[in-house]
């Protein structure tokens, strides 16, 4: 893009306008480069099937997309865990998913009532494809059995 004020914001705006999530922006100014143009690398999450819309937005703004890198399919699945989550080492439970390399715990919200009462947590797992999410869920099911936690999966979880 042109190396002039406001250009970077203009390049990011279409992403946020479509409800996307910007993960990283690499913006390096090379003093040797001529022509006053700048390469910017953006990593973002957008809804499935909206990449073409984004690319045409850029074209109409005079921003040329040099290269579309790896297009990854993101699948999220939420589950609820009930039981003695802290005493059974919640960070170990999370590690079991994060260490797979194909899925990660993306969000965790937990409600802890009185001491000795079971706590409840909503956990969102993120992965590139449904197969991997299901593999991660299978691990969680085993962990839940081992730690005597109740696992509540979503209905469309097959």
């Amino acid at each position, binding site marked *: 893009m042109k190396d002039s004020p406001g250009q970077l914001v203009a390049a990011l705006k279409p992403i946020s306008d479509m409800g996307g999530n910007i993960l990283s922006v690499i913006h390096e100014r090379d003093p040797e480069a001529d022509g006053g143009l700048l390469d910017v690398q953006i990593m973002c999450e957008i809804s499935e099937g909206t990449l073409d819309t984004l690319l045409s937005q850029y074209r109409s703004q005079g921003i040329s997309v040099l290269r579309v890198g790896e297009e990854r399919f993101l699948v999220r699945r939420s589950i609820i865990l009930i039981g003695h989550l802290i005493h059974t080492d919640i960070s170990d439970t999370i590690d079991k998913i994060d260490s797979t390399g194909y899925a990660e715990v993306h969000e965790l919200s937990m409600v802890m009532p009185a001491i000795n009462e079971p706590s409840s947590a909503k956990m969102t797992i993120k992965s590139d494809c449904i197969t991997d999410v299901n593999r991660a869920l299978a691990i969680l099911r085993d962990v839940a059995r081992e730690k005597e936690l*109740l696992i509540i999966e979503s*209905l469309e979880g097959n």
Partner: protein
Amino acid sequence: MRIAIIGFGSVGRGVAEAIADNQNGLTVTAVADSKSAAIDESGLNIAEILRNKAETGICGSPDITVSDIISSDAYDILVEVSPTNAETAEPALGYIRGALAGGKYVVTSNKGPIALKFEELHALAEAHGVTLRYEATVCGAIPLIHTIEHGIAGNEISRLYGIFNGTCNYILTRMAEEGLTYQQALLEARELGYAEADPTYDVQGIDAAIKLVILANAVWGMKKCLDDVDIIGIDRVTSAAIALAEKEDQTIRLIGEIDPADDILRVSPRIIPKSHPLVVRDTLNAVTIETDLAGEITLIGKGAGSSETASAILSDLLFICDCYGRRD
């Protein structure tokens, strides 16, 4: 056709009343409760029998037994509505076998025999040129079996899932809407008569699992038994967990699910969007059937209650009359 009713509790009485009220070509010729029975081949006086039952607690003479009725020729269709025994299915199983072996049609609301011995009973009925119908065993008034067998005949059913237990649905609805704890909601369900003094059978998912077994065997011929179902009940669900789901416009319901391709047969609490047609309130039941031609079909209705069960039995009786009644 002539009807014998075994079991004269609220369902049996409801069926007798419905038959007496409707001019539908049915005559009750025999009734039995646990202590007595009455037989009259020309038709019993239902009003008088109901009065007797209300006043004395028994419906007929203590000298006549259920076996006398079963082995008699005083009836064409046996309506078996005695209490369920999920472990042995007896004595209902013996009654049903006896009637089928004698060439009589059978209509039952009794889950035990259908869940445990469907294949055997179905074969026995075929061998004697009669049929066995059991609409009332699953989801009370909802015509689920009829819909699957006739309404969407010719469709391939890929998956079936839904809410099969009204007690659990009531408890989860109250926890979600009022923020009650599980114990408080259970207590309320008991006070309203929705839960038994011993709620184990309902809240641990066993009742829903038995209905899945019936459907798996009847719809897909899967030859499953209760041990084949993965069962998780609702007794450990917290109101905090429901509140976490509600934050994202979702809720928690006890869902029974059959997916034959993946060999899934399970009952478990599940997170489900509040906008999903299965999210029904209070004691309602709801079932979604996924088919190849008709797409998804969801049926909603009352899953328990004496008049609702009587409705399912009456529809089975009239179906038999329509199909076979004019054969003689």
